[in-house]
């Protein structure tokens, strides 16, 4: 039998959290959250900037997509070079 979940502190502000909203920061304590790359604290994933240090959240895709495009262009260039040689 699964025990009832006790009230754990809010992962965002540390205040005693009562689901569904933290009484202090008004955020959902069970909302998906990310770790800020700058201050290493937790912020709801839905917020664009860190709630603690205001650093804007970067997406991995911002460097992965250009890298993938470059890889395919490189493959295309190599195949053209090999074909014409």
């Amino acid at each position, binding site marked *: *039998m*699964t*025990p*009832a*979940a*006790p009230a*754990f*502190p809010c*992962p965002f502000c540390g205040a005693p959290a009562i*689901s569904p909203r933290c009484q202090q920061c008004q955020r959902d304590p*069970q*909302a*998906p*959250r*990310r*770790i800020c790359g700058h201050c290493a604290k*937790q912020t709801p*994933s839905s917020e664009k900037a860190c709630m603690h240090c205001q650093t804007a959240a970067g997406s991995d895709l911002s460097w*992965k997509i250009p*890298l*993938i495009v470059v*890889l*395919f262009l*490189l*493959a*295309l260039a190599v*195949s053209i070079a090999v074909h014409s040689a």
Partner: protein
Amino acid sequence: MARYKDPIVTEVLGKQLHPGEQLQHWAYGVRQPSMGLIILLVLLAVLPGLIAVALLTKEYVVGLTSHRLLILRVKGGKAAVQEITEYNRAQLPPSKTSTGGLFTHITINDPQRPFYAKFHRMGMANNRQHAMAIAAALPQAQQAA
């Protein structure tokens, strides 16, 4: 072939536990891009396509605790946590699980926090057993809620 060793995963999950909460099962899973995109990328160019698929694959460490289902999106050799999603075990949303020869699939159909990943039996030591235990706990928790 194992991506992570048990001490790394239990340490990463242990940092997310609350006082008195016990980690029961843990597993390593991935979410790859859609099969259509994988086929398209590999047909365009095999090596860049495979690299692209690897880059677009998300890695997860899932932990079942006495109170929650914890899902950590991780990256790197030391499983640096990128994102955390948690579900209260007493209020688990509808889920769909299946186990095949290689993979255990877990889908959580939550409108706010949807989740899907597949867990390779060689992803970690005892990954299959842990993933199946987590999958088995989902419907039980759902029925109890």
